[in-house]
């Protein structure tokens, strides 16, 4: 009886694992580490919140969306990547975050790393490994 119960439990566990929705963007978001390293010679050596702001996409970086980002507490360090130069977005970051780094994707390389999104992204990375992410 115990063996049957164990088998059912095992099947249910495996079944649930199989039905778990595929995390479609994890691999792409992990590309943030490679992008910063290769394109900006920057390594993430501590727990860092990387914010990718889609400054060149219509209405993605509006005040409402930026306020949502500001409402979330980042990890130990904060890094911003802007998909294009934007004075108003840079000014918002300067006003809101005292200690941060800002990188601008001047050459438009982000899409080649799979990092072109229709929403802004927060990726929490510790020692080069993606821990979690979400879109705003």
């Amino acid at each position, binding site marked *: 009886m115990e063996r049957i119960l164990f088998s059912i439990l095992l099947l249910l566990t495996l079944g649930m694992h199989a039905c778990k929705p595929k995390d479609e963007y994890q691999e792409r978001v992990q590309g943030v580490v490679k992008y910063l390293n290769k394109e900006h010679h920057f390594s993430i050596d501590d727990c860092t919140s990387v914010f990718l702001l889609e400054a060149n996409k219509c209405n993605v970086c509006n005040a409402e969306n930026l306020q949502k980002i500001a409402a979330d507490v980042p990890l130990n360090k904060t890094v911003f990547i802007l998909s294009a130069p934007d004075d108003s977005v840079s000014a918002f970051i300067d006003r809101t975050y005292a200690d941060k780094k800002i990188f601008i994707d001047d050459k438009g390389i982000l899409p080649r*790393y799979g990092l072109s999104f229709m929403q802004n992204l927060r990726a929490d990375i510790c020692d080069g490994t993606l821990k979690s992410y979400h879109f705003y």
Partner: protein
Amino acid sequence: MRIATFAFLLLLLTGCFNAKENEVSYTKYQDTITIPAPLSFSLFQYKHPLIYFLNGDSNQLFVFNLDQNRMVGRVQIPASPYNNIEFGGIHSFYVHNNDSIFLQDLYSFSIIDTSGKRKYNKIINSPGSNHWPAILYNNISGVFPIYYDTVLNKLFTRQYSGEKMMSEREFYAVKVEAQMDLRDSIMKELPVGYPVLYNKNYCGEANLVFREVADSTNIYSFMASPDIVIYNRYNGDIKRLTAKSRLQHKDFTPLSLHYSKEMNRKMDHLVENPLYMKIIYDKYRSCYYRILLNAKEIKNEDGSYNTFSDKDLIISVFDKNFRLLTDVNAGSNHLWDYSFATPKGLYILRISDNTHIKQATINGKDLIFDIITFDIGHARM
């Protein structure tokens, strides 16, 4: 028996030679239109030899002569009486002649002349109401401009549901175009609906409808489908047929409705699937061009990624009966929307350093076009 075999082989060979004869050759060269800076435009109309560019900032139509390569005039568009309600600006225009320039804003149709004098106005889409009407008349996404037929004295416009969202199946139950008889200003829908694909599936953002106007017909192209609809404006006949590119290497895959609010997934879906865009009628060669943005894998074998702008643009050439003549892969350096047929050939705008796309507007000093001239004369007609 030997004679029969010989005859069969001869037939086969003749067939091969005929197929060769049916191939359409083409030439490609460039033309540059120098635009006095700063001019930005979103909508345009080509009417040989003139191109009309709509500048939304100044609410002006700039008139450019393609043969003389110079600006030859401008028309100041009067402010809409409804601009102060919301969403001002012209959504669509059609230049019939100097006396009749048809305009569509969110709340009205108007006719003006080149002096900007308004000669006709009809209210549409219930301005001031808290709810959209059941049917909206508007140039949705800027790809379905109004058209005026002189013989019928009717204005043709895109229509769609004002009550249903694009993610709801009922949205696709509404016919795609309406006509308004200028004698009584009554709107009447045309019997042209979406292909079944849209009624049974969710196609994500692949939901644009394009309409081209030929001598007596309106031709409709739907983004997700190789099928087209041909509607005869004079006798009401409708034909549905397939106008598929030979270079389409993958069928369209509908998207799960689960993703209807996920913009990233919807964008990826547009990259991964073949998308049929507009059809262009070439009255100088009695043929049609259909533009396909071919399916592209999101990730390449070398680990790099693709985006929407990496999709290959295919130009399929069809004869007057919509038999496929040839397909050309034009690569990924063109803006399909800015294309039109001229006596010289098919003009299609190249992406260049001067072409900066921002919010569906092109700002540039020089517009560089590729002109592709197909030698239709040798093809079967």
